[in-house]
């Protein structure tokens, strides 16, 4: 191979780093627990984004590839709202000294802003696509993701920013086990959101209507369910969930216009869980989230980045319907 050797940096013989990072070392339970906690909190974030995917898919049969970018947008809006509320509360004596007051208000504000954004998006862009082939909608939302990224880049710039969150930085120390506030916040936030969603779908009138619309659009329309309004509401809810995920994850990773790319992994989570199953989304997210830190520690470097996809492919080959299947074969 004369060509290869003629250039200076042709073939750096790398020492296989595969076994360099302590696979032989025995792990204590503590370390495993530590990794588990990191994995669970990251998995909850995947789960939350996946929840948004699944909600929209279940209700409207559309696949929203821009879900991760909606999360990014939510985080940025929260960032700006926190700054705005900080400025505003400086004039209010009661709230000025209160820690986390502006964060709390900004959190709620972001949820509303993003819900409104979801409705507008549905009305303007997605509604003309009802009844179109799923592929067209998929492409549309991919395009939408690019647009959202460019818009966020135009408004907030490209450099990463830190969200001023009360959960950032602090840690619990449980007998040597270090648990960050932000991890607790993510897990608790996810649990709360899931609980609220469960109650909403189970017990409210509109929630049940949504379930009906998700099972059969046309039949739901015939029995008088305002399917279009239901769709708008679903987009609102899923945009709000994305925003919540964005705010919760912001203390862990910084926010920048490209943070939405973890949406791809969340998508993998949704499919692993069985696309179209709400608990499946969370379980799939947890599975992928927990796998990542362990893979990062034990297997070749960089593999943790693709572990979600490896799990996904394995799942698709072995059990394509996911953990909680919602697909069924049509009886002819």
């Amino acid at each position, binding site marked *: *191979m004369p060509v290869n050797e003629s250039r200076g940096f042709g073939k750096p013989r790398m020492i296989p780093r595969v076994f360099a990072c302590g696979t032989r070392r025995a792990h204590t339970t503590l370390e495993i627990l530590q990794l588990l906690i990191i994995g669970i909190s990251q998995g909850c974030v995947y789960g939350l984004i996946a929840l948004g995917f699944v909600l929209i898919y279940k209700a409207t049969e559309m696949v929203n590839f821009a879900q991760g970018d909606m999360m990014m947008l939510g985080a940025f809006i929260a960032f700006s709202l926190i700054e705005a509320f900080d400025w505003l509360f400086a004039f209010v004596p009661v709230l000025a000294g209160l820690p986390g007051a502006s964060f709390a208000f900004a959190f709620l504000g972001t949820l509303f802003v993003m819900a409104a954004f979801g409705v507008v998006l549905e009305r303007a862009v997605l509604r003309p696509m009802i009844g179109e082939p799923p592929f067209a909608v998929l492409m549309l939302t991919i395009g939408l993701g690019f647009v959202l990224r460019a818009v966020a*880049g135009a408004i907030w710039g490209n450099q990463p920013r830190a969200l001023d969150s009360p959960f950032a930085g602090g840690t619990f120390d449980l007998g040597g086990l270090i648990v960050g506030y932000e991890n607790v916040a993510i897990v608790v936030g996810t649990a709360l959101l899931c609980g609220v969603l469960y109650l909403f779908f189970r017990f409210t009138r509109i929630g049940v209507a949504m379930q009906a619309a998700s099972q059969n659009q046309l039949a739901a329309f015939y029995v008088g369910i305002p399917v279009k309004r239901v769709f708008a509401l679903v987009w609102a809810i899923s945009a709000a969930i994305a925003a919540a995920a964005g705010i919760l994850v912001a203390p862990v990773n910084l926010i920048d216009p490209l943070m939405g790319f973890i949406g791809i992994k969340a998508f993998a989570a949704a499919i692993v869980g069985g696309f179209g199953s709400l608990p499946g989304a969370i379980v799939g997210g947890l599975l992928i989230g927990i796998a990542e830190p362990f893979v990062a520690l034990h297997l070749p470097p960089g593999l943790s980045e693709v572990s979600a*996809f490896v799990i*996904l492919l394995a799942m698709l080959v072995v059990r394509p319907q996911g953990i909680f299947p919602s697909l069924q*074969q049509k009886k002819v």
Partner: protein
Amino acid sequence: MRFVLKTNYDQDVKVFLHNGQRFWYGLLALAVLLAPLVLDRFYLGEFAYLYIWAIAGVGLMLLVGYTGLVSLGHAAFLAIGAYAHAWLLTQGVPFVLSVPLATAFCAIIGYIVGLPALRMTGIYLAIATLAFERIAAWVIEHWESVTGGHFGMRVPDPMVFGMSLDGPVPFYYLCLGILGLSLFAALNLLRSPTGRAFIAVRDSEVSAQSMGINLARTKCTAFALSAAFTGLAGTLFSHRIGYLAPDAFTVQTSIQLLLMVVVGGLGSLQGVVYGAIFLGLLPQAIAIGRDVLPQWIGEIPGLEPGIFGAILVVFLIFEPLGIHGRWVKVRLWFDQFPLYRRATYKRQRSYLRTERVR
């Protein structure tokens, strides 16, 4: 308006339906053949680039436009073709042999990827191919002894029988020739039973199956052929960029390829070429726009993909048949001048069709 009187079944599968088409396509062929006489280096390079995109587009069009399988992972085939070709060249394999070998290798990989794809439809397939693309990218980044990892690898000059094809004019003709062959091959494929089976599978799997089409084999063939064309484009692409690095092939490349076939017009080979022209011209247009518009707009990060995305959205909402579809409509309007009906190309929506019940 032209009526073609059909007196023979063979007329249905003719490459050119009538003399008018023969004339115009002949003229086009003459124009692109003589283009190096008038164009300078830069534009020849750009045209060659456009032809490479079109070759890759032919592959994706076979899969997405004709078989109805969506792939978000075609950048991987482009990369595999490019790397396999470059590696073979560094091993001393001659160019004439290396291109078909790399193409065949891509076809085999495509076939293997197609196997699990049999059990998936729609978005499942899209995301599975995306996962495949990410994994392939990881392998390319980390298989340093072959691909050079992050350092990348230099691609040797294309040599055919001791003659270098590296100059702009020979490379232009190389790309043009391969594009011509690819288009002709695809055209012939689509007239053959295999191609007809692709279209049948796209339109309805159930009815295709009940007419005796082997779904599994058809889909795998589609994947393999599609990967082969895209890999072929990859071999040329490697010469075009001259130095292969993993960041040349990303998810965005896959999406640009998809954008190309969607904007060009799904289900038409002309659409591939339109899409490639569009994709080739857009960065130039954006670059010109940057000079004209106020500076802060030009400095927006991610502006180019943003514009790509916006155009994609606009096309999907207003003209899902793409540039080719629009052209067909315009032509029909002139053909039937006072009598054109808007409903001719009205989109059929299906509110009951669901992916969940297959």
